[in-house]
């Protein structure tokens, strides 16, 4: 009992602006995770492929962004060029490699293996071209500095921009999926791709486009985090596991699940280290959260029956 009182006592001692800062940073984490998880979950829902190379595309995006920034000196060009190039790379990989395995008996597993192989070689490719150490990004002048302050907490402009971009992209994705023909086909393909094919739609082209789109989103996340985190060859290794957890908690193939669970995981990652005595568990807690969610809801928060089983 005393321990509990002490726990809450120490919790109450944490100043309000610390909480606000952490929630804000958690929102930044969550936004990055949303961008990654959306791509992962759409690719999985449509093609049944667990894309282990997603972290590699995220890293590729960050490096290509750095390169574009270096060549043109303009962050905005980098923000557009890098995702497009990475998306094309993703589409190319889908066309040349993944497409070969769809018809085979265990396409899910072959997909995991191929993308896993890509994630194995990815970091060394970047080390080969860009060196082993991390590369700094320059924050664009327009987004440098503090946007506003609440209760002695500074909200950096760039992070606000990052959150804003992530949410605009969610909106765009939602419009794409709900209001366009392509979105209709993607949604139909997620629920039954064979049927879509029977209706005379060339679903394979949709697969390529979707894979490209998903990898472009990951690359965009990579460019966006550039000015905040260091760009380094192993940056994809860590975040890919977190994104998987997000997707598992949200339910494989569910878009709304990916968004909500990314926000939850983002908050847990930044708020947990504040708790007295429990800071040490901060790295483990998202795994515990995942285990708990799977015990209560075996298919994740919004997963549907039969997907991925």
């Amino acid at each position, binding site marked *: 009992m005393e321990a509990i009182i002490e726990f809450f006592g120490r919790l109450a001692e944490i100043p309000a602006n610390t909480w606000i800062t952490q929630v804000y940073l958690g929102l930044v984490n969550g936004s990055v995770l949303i961008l990654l998880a959306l791509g992962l979950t759409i690719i999985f829902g449509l093609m049944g492929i667990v894309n282990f190379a997603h972290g590699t595309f995220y890293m590729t995006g960050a490096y290509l962004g750095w390169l574009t920034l270096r060549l043109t000196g303009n962050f905005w060009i980098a923000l557009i060029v890098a995702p497009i190039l990475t998306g094309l790379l993703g589409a190319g990989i889908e066309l040349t490699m993944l497409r070969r395995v769809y018809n085979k008996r265990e396409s899910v597993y*072959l997909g995991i293996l191929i993308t896993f192989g890509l994630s194995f070689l990815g970091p060394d490719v970047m080390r080969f071209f860009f060196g082993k150490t991390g590369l700094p990004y320059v924050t664009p002048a327009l987004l440098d500095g503090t946007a506003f302050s609440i209760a002695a907490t500074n909200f950096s402009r760039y992070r606000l921009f990052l959150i804003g971009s992530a949410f605009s992209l969610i909106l765009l994705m939602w419009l794409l999926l709900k209001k366009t023909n392509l979105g209709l086909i993607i949604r139909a393909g997620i629920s039954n791709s064979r049927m879509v094919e029977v209706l005379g739609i060339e679903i394979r082209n949709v697969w390529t486009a979707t894979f490209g789109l998903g990898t472009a989103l990951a690359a965009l996340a990579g460019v966006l985090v550039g000015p905040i985190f260091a760009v380094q060859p192993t940056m994809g290794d860590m975040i890919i596991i977190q994104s998987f957890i997000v997707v598992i908690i949200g339910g494989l193939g569910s878009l709304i699940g990916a968004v909500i669970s990314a926000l939850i995981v983002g908050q847990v990652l930044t708020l947990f280290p504040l708790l007295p005595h429990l800071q040490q568990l901060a790295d483990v807690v998202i*795994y515990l959260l995942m285990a708990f969610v799977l015990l209560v809801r075996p298919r994740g928060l919004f997963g549907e029956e039969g997907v991925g089983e």
Partner: protein
Amino acid sequence: MSGSTALKQTPNPSSVKSLFAFAVGLIILFAWPLFAQYTPIFTSLATEIIIFSLFGIAYNMALGYTGLISLGHAAFFGFGGYFTGAMLKFFGLPVILSLMLALVASSILGVVFGFICLRKTGVYFTLVTLAISQMLYYVAQMWIGVTGGHEGMAGIPRLGLGQWVELTNNPKGQYWFVASVAGISVYMLWRMVNSSFGKVMQAVRENEERANTCGYNTKRVKYVAFIISGAFSGLAGSLYLISQEFFGIENIYWTMSGAVLIITLFGGTEVFLGPFVGALLFLLMKDSFSHYFEYWQILTGTLFVAVVLFLPEGILGSIVTFFSNRVLRRLPKKEA
């Protein structure tokens, strides 16, 4: 699935030819340190190859024979290593006893791990094994008192088998010790694969529903296969600690699960000794290529993707298929 039924199944039609091949293989295996210095595979590298062959063969119990794609076997490998290290370092137990305890402890880990993960099937299973093993990685990272955290586990006392054989700073002694333990383990796994239980495992891989309809408790089959796979993966980790006299935290990181997956698929999942070929290739690339080309993962990764795309049976698997096809092609001619 009792022992007696397992014994009825003799491994291989033991012709004189295969017995001869087996004997030659065994002699080469044990004589290797004597001429290792004339080959690119030095004794220490050969020790590592044997350990990772055992790891791969144990992993293949789950992957190839039962069809469970686990990305959590780093947890077993790492746990086995840390556990043995703790037994040697803090309790001062003899090497053999530590290994046996590690085997038991890894089985218990398999019981817990399998209980959680095998509630899931398909992709969920793979992702949950990955997540749980990552959790153990963070536990290892925090528990610095035992594991040494990022510094790795060092300070393993001088090891030996009684007063006769010195293991510390003795690559040949380590090699023979590791080869003996791994040899016995691989033989046990070989018997298991060829037992009636092994046949049921393969039936589960081919078609779980049908095996279930045949009256087999497929869930239990998968559970047992997973535990055995984990136990021997843990033993491989123990041997790795003993041969390295050190245990780094990267051994429990998820990339280790990836490495064993690559090793197993390189060789081929449908041939028992496939992972041996895989380990040979993987470690040769890692050790030899990296002298000439630092970024060896590019080559290994490319080769891995190529193997998955073009040789889905793996390298040894494809060789076996190639030769058995040739034999089959020749057979009808004789009959005709």
